[in-house]
Every structure is written in C-alpha cells, then in structure tokens.
C-alpha cells in the first residue's frame, strides 16, 4: 500500500475539508476542518482500501497564542493494511467544541473524556462527557498552557 493513498483518497473524498497534508517517511498527516471530523473518521474506517479500524490515540495540544488555539489529534491504525495516519483538527478557544467520534470508534469514549478533563474541549454527541482523571469540583483544566503553575486546588473532604 502506497503511503500517499490514504491522503490522496482523503483529498478526493473531502476536497473542501482537508486544509493541509504532508507525508514524511511513511508518516502521513492530514490537517482537517473540525466540522467534518466524524465523517472523515467514518470514511477512514469504512473505505475498503483504507480500513482504519483501530483508533490508537486521541489527544490535544494547546498552542497558546495561535489561532486556532487547540488542536485535537487522532492517531489511527489499519490492522489490515499495517498503515497509520494522523488527523489533526484545529479548535478555537471561542468555540471550544468538536464532534465526538464515539459513534465511529467506541474506544474514543475515555480519550475524549480525558481531553475534556485536561483541556476543556467539549465533544458534541459524547454519551457521558464528565471528568475522568480529576474529580468533580476541580477548577480549571490543568494541561492548558495558561493554567497557573502554582495554582492549588481546595482539598476535597472525606467520601461518606
């Protein structure tokens, strides 16, 4: 399988949604518009030549001072074709939401909750979007670059 097949098919299928693609030593990356993320993921999973059936990682990056500020990153793997692709979708601070892909890969559930927990990005359509690692009552999102380094959270009381 040629390394550029994935990107070529993506650009053919979603000409208006792919902002940028690059491929370096078999490392394919596509920067896409966040509005079409669920459709793109479903296409990557279902297309006969691609079959990205394993969502390996879903995370986010905070580029403070840049627009869009956040970038949600998806790492996909095709067990069938032994092929990987990275999808990036920019999310601005003013509209800090993106569509959930739990309907495409069920394993995205906890990844999306973690991103919500750490970055405060809301995943629209997620079945149960609440904090996963931190506790209810935690103020702020600690992996945002503007989270104060010395900020202390109030201690939580005994669970009864």
């Amino acid at each position, binding site marked *: 399988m040629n390394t550029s097949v994935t990107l070529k098919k993506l650009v053919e299928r979603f000409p208006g949604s792919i902002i940028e693609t690059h491929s370096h030593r078999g490392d394919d990356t596509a920067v896409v518009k966040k509005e079409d993320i669920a459709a793109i993921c479903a296409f990557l999973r279902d297309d006969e030549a691609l079959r990205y059936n394993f969502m390996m990682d879903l995370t986010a990056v905070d580029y403070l001072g840049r627009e869009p500020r956040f970038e949600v990153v998806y790492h996909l793997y095709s067990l069938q074709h032994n092929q990987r692709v990275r999808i990036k979708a920019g999310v601005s601070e003013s509209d800090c939401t993106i569509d959930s892909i739990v309907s495409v890969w069920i394993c995205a559930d906890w990844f999306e909750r973690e991103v919500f927990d750490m970055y405060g990005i809301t995943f629209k359509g997620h079945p149960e979007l609440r904090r996963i690692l*931190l*506790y209810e009552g*935690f103020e702020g999102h*600690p992996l945002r670059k503007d*989270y104060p380094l*010395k*900020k*202390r*959270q109030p*201690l*939580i*009381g*005994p*669970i009864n």
Partner: protein
Amino acid sequence: MGLITRKKDASRQLIQQPGDPAADENLLGGNVILTKLQEVVNWSRKYSFFLYPFVTACCGMEFMSVAGPKYDLDRFGAALPRFSPRQADLLMVVGTISHKQAPILVKVYNQMTEPKWVFAFGVCAVSGGFYDNYATVQGIDTLVPVDVYVPGCPPRPEWSLTDCSSCSRKSPRNVGPIGQEARHR
C-alpha cells in the same frame, strides 16, 4: 549480709534526702520497681506498634525492605501489619497522595482508634516532593496530624528504623491516662 548492709545505707540516704524517689527504690534493695500504671502501659506500647501500611507509590519497595528480614522492623516490635485501620495504631503513609486519594487517607485515619501515630514516609508524603503540581497533596500534614517525617526519595531503611524508634520514644509523651486518651493536637 550484703543485703542488710545495702538496706542500712539506703535508709541513711532516705533520712538525708526525704522524698527522693531514687532513695525510695534503694530502700527496697532493687527488688521492687516503683512506677505508675500509665507508664507501664505506655512502656508496653512503646515497642508493640501495629502499623497500617498506606502504600501508594514507589516508596513501598523501600518500605518492604524495612519490613523484610534484612532490616527487620520486627526488632522494634512493629512486626505485624494490620490491614484494618481499626486494629492499627501507627499509620504509615508511604508514597504520593493525590487529591483524589486524600479523602481515603482521612477516612482511614479517622477509623483508627486512639492512641494513634502517623508516619510520613518519603518526601512525597512529607511535602509533595517534586510533584509540585495540580494533582498532588503538598504534604499529608494538610490532611492529618503527622508525628514523624522521614524525607528521602525513597528514605534509606536505616532512617525509617531510626525514626520508627523515635516514634516509639515519643509515644509515652503523647498518651494521657487510660480511658481518657486525648490526641496531642
């Protein structure tokens, strides 16, 4: 014959220094020890700690070394870890305590009966250590009163043993009369 002579000497001392407890003991020729009931109880407690290992992180390996045969905490009477806080009197907090873990630690502490002592094992339990971040409690003394702080990442077993024995030296001071034991803090 010698015994009678000692008694004579002792009675002479008693006359010279009335009220001296040492003289009182001399009077009895070293056959009887005078003490208070509370002191006996405390003395027996001193080397019979029942510890509750609250082990959350890598310090646990060092704690196992302390409790194991080589360094042998048993020599100080703290042989038997109790896995119910209700049966324990020494809370060993071994490792990092996160904010999510904090309520559990407080609950365990509250379940222990008086008299009780808290042992902060390692820098994370002492002050948060290098986990100066959003998730870690900056020292367990923000949650429960701590009797002994053992810094180190992890502490040497020798330090823990030294401090465990200092904890046992400390114990009688902190315990009030039987039946009305009050926390020192």
